[in-house]
Structure formats: structure tokens, C-alpha cells
């Protein structure tokens, strides 16, 4: 019960992010015009925090603050990934927002606060910290979605996201309250797991609580049937925010999913949430991929593709409820999320580049015709992202799918994996359509000549190189993911031991 000063080490990354947020906001008051300085300060700060996270996190495994959060390998891995994502988003944002009325300091501040919320979320091992993390992340994202307030689409996106998000938070909180009541006043995930494993007969409202919590979380990862917000919000938000939204919250929400459902509630997987998530996973993959086939706007296409990817990731959650494959499934999830992050950031950055070469800045896929002849490097990188998203070897996306699917096979979900593989085949059509447009179609008149913007080209290059290198040498990344998953604070194992 007493506060232990060494616990501060566990939240050092979050504290540093907060300090950086305040620094950037204060600094903006002094140097309003010099956006470049602000950007450099933010990036250097984030790089320092990345180092802090990697080194401070390794020291303490296990819980801190009375089991409110855990600084384990799992959370350190995801925190490092989230900081990397944030750095790339900040790096692309400055040029994107040039000429708009968005104030850079507050924009960066909101992104950093959202990151702070996600970092709390990936290390949360208590219902209270999960809720607060989700809210911190979501409130910042609502603001970011509507940060260009003059535009109808941006306002629509923010409003839709806010209303539906607030509603889903209500579900989540009610579910948590019911679980709190059903377990006799427990909020800690480990304790919840223990109480549930000892319960003789399950009260009905425990099931209701699990159902409501899963609705709240499925909304955050945009799974069918809670996906309706995502295409509109992705399309309407400023594109750097869209890529932040597509990657960060998904990684954080899946971390919660695996800690909550894969560990604490794993005892209920067979009769309560397993079959439901099975159906949701199939619906999410299939619907996401089929609707993506008919999209002509690249942002909407990527939105539906990210819905489909949430479906694949649900396989890892389902598999992780089996104690024997828990570590494999968690490692697969970490690997997949890493792959997913780089593929999406790369693809969205190319989308920015192409849209900015049009006068009206639209995101039509016809603009990709013949890009290979005018901009071979960017076209090559986009081809890598598309091939990786569809899961063709030797890219990172292929290995992500491989690890997640093989964990699911080990846990006995063979039908589900067959459906997932069939879905991947469908997805090849719309991903490779972009590649065909770039390489095989003649350029439309007037030819698309891409703007020369080095920050965007650098981000595209970094993502492409990481996808190819890690795709050729997947073992290094997987080793990190496995060691992260192994040191994860894991209530299932303690339950088995007792």
C-alpha cells in the first residue's frame, strides 16, 4: 500500500513524455513562428525517451504502484514501437500542416498526450488504469481528428468519432463495473483471474460485464460490427493524424485485449467470449476485405484494410487464451503490430505525397497510374508496402501473418485460420491493384509529378527499408518479441501454479 520510490522507474517513459509535452507547449509561446525548432525539440526529446524506455524498462519486471501497471518486456516493446510511430508522425506533420491554420505546438502536444495515454494502456494491469489510459488517448484523438476545424470533412470526422467513442466508453465502463461487482470488488487483472478460476457458478452479470467490455474494446480496434466510424474518420482527419490513429490506438487496444482476455479472463474463453470473438473475427476480416475491393479513395481503402487487419489480430487474442500458446500468440501479436505499423505509416505517407501533387489534394487511386515511370523510388516503396500488407514473402507482413496464424493453429483454430488465409488471398486483389496502376498503366494526362519533399521521402524510405530488412531477417525482431512476451506479467501462469 505504501508508495515505493522505485515504482517511479516503471512510469519514467510516461513522465518524460509529459515533461516533453509541457516543454513543447511552453516553447510554442516563446517562438510561435519557428515551427522547425519545435519539431526538432520534439524529435530529439522523443529519441531520448526511446532510449530511456529501452534502458529503464529492462531493470524492473513486474508490477508497480500496487499492481496498477506492469513494466514488463511486453509493455517496453510496445512503448518503443509507439514512440517510433509518434516520431514518424511528428516528422511528416510539419510539412503537411504548412499553410494551414493549425497551431503546431498544440497539435504536437495533443499527439504526445495521446502517446502518453497509449503507453499507460500497454502497461496497464488494472481496470482503472486501462480506463484512464483509454480516455487519455481518446480525448486527444477526438481533438486531433477535428483540428482543422474549417473543413466540413474534418469536423464530421471529429464529431462522429467523439459521439461514438464516448458511447463506447460508456459500455466499457459499465462492463468494468459489472466485473468489479462479480469478482467481489477486484480491479486488478491478476486478482480477477484468480477469483474467476475459483468461482463455482458464474453469475450472469459477469458474462454481461465481459460482453460490455468487449464491445468497448472492439470499437477501439474498429472490428465489425463496430467499425462504421472508421472509414469516415480516417478519410476526414488530416492524413498524419489518420496514420497515427490507424496504428497507435490499435496497438494499445490489442495490448489491453491480450492482457484482459488472454490472461485474466482466459478461464471464460471456451464458453463465454471465445465463440463470440470467433464470429467477430470472421466478420471483421471478410467484411473489411470485401468492402475494400470497391474503394476508389486510397484513404478509405486503407481504412477498410486496417479493419481487416484487426480481424487477423483477433486470431492472436483468441489463441492467447490457451495457456500453452499464450507466449507464442503474444509474441505473434507484437510482431504483427510492428509490421502493421511500418506498412501503414509508409502507405499513408505515399498517399500524402501523391495527393499533394494534385491541385485539389484529393486521394483518388487513379492518381497512381504511371507513377513508376516518373518516380521509380516512391513507386518501388509503395509496391513494398502493398506487397507487405497483402502478406506476400519475403516482407515483414508475411512473417507477421505467419506467426499469428501458426499460433492460432497451435491453439486449435484451424477453420478460422483457413478463413483468414482465404481472406488474405482476397486482399491481394486490391493491394496489387495499386501496384498494377503504378507499373502497368500509362500515366494519365497531365502526368502526376510528385512534389519533392524530403521529410516524407525519408519516412517512406525508413519504412520500406525496415520492412525489407526485417522481412529478410525476421528472427531478430521475433527474438525481441518472444523475450518481450515471455517476461509479460501473466496471470494465467500464476493461476496454473496455485
Amino acid at each position, binding site marked *: *500500500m*505504501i*508508495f515505493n520510490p522505485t515504482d517511479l522507474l516503471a*512510469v519514467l517513459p510516461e513522465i518524460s513524455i*509529459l515533461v516533453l509535452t509541457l516543454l513543447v*507547449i511552453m516553447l510554442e509561446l516563446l517562438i510561435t513562428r519557428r515551427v522547425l525548432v519545435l519539431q526538432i525539440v520534439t524529435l530529439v526529446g522523443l529519441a531520448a525517451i526511446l532510449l530511456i524506455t529501452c534502458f529503464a524498462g529492462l531493470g524492473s519486471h513486474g508490477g*508497480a*504502484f*500496487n499492481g*496498477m*501497471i506492469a513494466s514488463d518486456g511486453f509493455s517496453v516493446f510496445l512503448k518503443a514501437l509507439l514512440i517510433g510511430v509518434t516520431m514518424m508522425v511528428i516528422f511528416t506533420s510539419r510539412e503537411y500542416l504548412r499553410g494551414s*491554420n*493549425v*497551431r503546431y505546438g*498544440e*497539435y504536437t*502536444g*495533443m499527439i504526445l*498526450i*495521446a502517446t*502518453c*495515454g497509449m503507453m*499507460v494502456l500497454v502497461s496497464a494491469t*488494472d481496470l*482503472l*488504469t486501462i480506463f*484512464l*489510459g483509454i*480516455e*487519455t488517448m481518446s*480525448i*486527444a484523438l*477526438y*481533438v486531433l481528428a*477535428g*483540428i*482543422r*476545424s*474549417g*473543413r*466540413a*470533412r*474534418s469536423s464530421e470526422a471529429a464529431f462522429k468519432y467523439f459521439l461514438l467513442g464516448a458511447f463506447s466508453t460508456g459500455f466499457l465502463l459499465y462492463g468494468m463495473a*459489472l466485473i468489479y*461487482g*462479480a469478482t467481489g470488488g477486484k480491479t486488478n487483472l491478476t486478482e480477477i483471474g484468480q477469483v474467476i478460476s475459483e468461482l463455482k457458478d458464474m*453469475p*450472469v*452479470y459477469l458474462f*454481461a460485464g465481459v460482453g460490455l467490455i468487449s464491445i468497448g474494446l472492439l470499437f477501439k480496434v474498429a472490428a465489425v460490427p463496430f467499425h462504421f466510424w472508421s472509414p469516415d474518420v480516417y478519410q476526414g482527419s*488530416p*492524413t498524419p493524424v489518420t496514420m497515427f490513429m490507424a496504428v497507435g490506438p490499435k496497438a494499445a487496444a490489442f495490448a489491453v485485449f491480450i492482457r484482459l482476455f488472454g490472461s485474466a479472463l482466459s478461464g471464460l474463453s471456451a464458453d463465454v467470449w471465445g465463440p463470440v470473438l470467433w464470429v467477430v473475427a470472421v466478420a471483421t476480416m471478410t467484411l473489411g476485405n470485401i468492402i475494400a475491393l470497391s474503394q476508389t479513395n486510397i484513404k478509405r481503402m486503407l481504412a477498410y484494410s486496417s479493419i481487416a487487419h484487426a480481424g487477423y489480430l483477433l486470431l492472436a487474442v483468441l489463441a492467447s487464451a490457451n495457456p500453452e500458446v499464450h507466449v507464442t500468440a503474444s509474441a505473434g501479436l507484437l510482431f504483427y503490430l510492428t509490421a502493421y505499423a511500418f506498412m501503414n505509416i509508409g502507405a499513408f505517407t505515399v498517399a500524402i505525397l501523391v*495527393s499533394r501533387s494534385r491541385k*485539389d*489534394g*484529393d*486521394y483518388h487511386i487513379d492518381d497512381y497510374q504511371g507513377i513508376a515511370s516518373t518516380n521509380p523510388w516512391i513507386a518501388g516503396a509503395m509496391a513494398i508496402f502493398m506487397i507487405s500488407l497483402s502478406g506476400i514473402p519475403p516482407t515483414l507482413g508475411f512473417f507477421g501473418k505467419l506467426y499469428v496464424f501458426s499460433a492460432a493453429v497451435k491453439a486449435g483454430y484451424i477453420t478460422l485460420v483457413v478463413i483468414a488465409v482465404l481472406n488474405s488471398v482476397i486482399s491481394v486483389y486490391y493491394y496489387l491493384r495499386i501496384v498494377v496502376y503504378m507499373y502497368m498503366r500509362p500515366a494519365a494526362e497531365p502526368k502526376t509529378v510528385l512534389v519533392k519533399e524530403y521529410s516524407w521521402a525519408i519516412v517512406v524510405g525508413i519504412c520500406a527499408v525496415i520492412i525489407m530488412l526485417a522481412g529478410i531477417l525476421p528472427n531478430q525482431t521475433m527474438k525481441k518479441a518472444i523475450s518481450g512476451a515471455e517476461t509479460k506479467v501473466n496471470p494465467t501462469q500464476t493461476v496454473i501454479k496455485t
Partner: protein
Amino acid sequence: MELILFIITALVALGSAFMVITRRSPIASVLFLILTFFCLAVFYVMLGAQFIAAMQIIVYAGAIMVLFLFVLMLLNLRGTQSWEVGNPLRKWLGFAAAGGILLVAATAIKSVGMIGTELDPALGTVESVGRNLFTRFLLPFEIASVLLLGAIIGTVAMVKQKQSESAEEKGGEEQ
């Protein structure tokens, strides 16, 4: 004595809750909702939870009600204007949802056996809430402050944008 107080407050709470859903004017509904919240605060005091009672009045009867009235004012709903929903299906869905909540609450109370249980007298006092906040729930308490900071910065950022936008010409339609 306490029983009489309880019965009176409970009747007022139920009566005002009924008025909330039967009034045609939204303003009247909101005012009756305030009365309901005050009655709930009385229940908390009777349970020995002074802090929660104070919170109930400050947060619900105070802040949230002001928010409700403010929204009604912005929407400019006249007092006489009814806010009936067109689709009758919605009414039945509402009934079903309320019934479901009632069912869950009933099973919860039944299985815990809450009626007649002795409560810890320190529960809900300012002292015990404060002690818990700063020991066991220290981290969530601090994260809540980050959440509020984010909300403040976000609000300022959006409002500032609106002002500078209206000063300039109306922006383009699409991105």
C-alpha cells in the same frame, strides 16, 4: 426516524424520476433530474458516505446539470416543443434496455445479498477516500490529471482554431 426519512426521500426520488420521463418540456425534465440527484445525495449521507454525497451534488446536480441546460439552450428547444421520437420502435427498445439494466441490478443485489449488510462506517468519508487516493490509487489519480490536462489543451486548441478560421475566409470544402 431514519426509516421515515428514507421513505420520504425514496418517494420523492421515484416521483421526480417519473416526472423526468413524462414532462414534455426538456427544461422541466432536467430540473426534475436535479431533484432526483439531490435525493440520491441524501441516501449517500444516510449510508455514511458524506464525501460521495458531496460529489453527487457538486458533479451531478452541479456541473452535469449546467452542461445539460447549456446544451438545451444552444439547441434552442422551446419549453413547449415536444421531443417525441418519430419511430415507436425506439420507445420499445428503450423499455427493453431499461428492463435489462433492472434485471442485471436485481441479480447482482440478490447474489451479493446486500440488503441488511453492515457497512464499514469509514467507507465513503473524506478521510478514507483521501487515504485511498494517495496510497492505493496514487497512479490512477495522477493519470487522471494527465487526462484533464489533455482535455484542457484540446479545448483551447479547438477554440483558438475556430476564431482564427472565422477571421480568415471560409476554407475549402475538401482536403
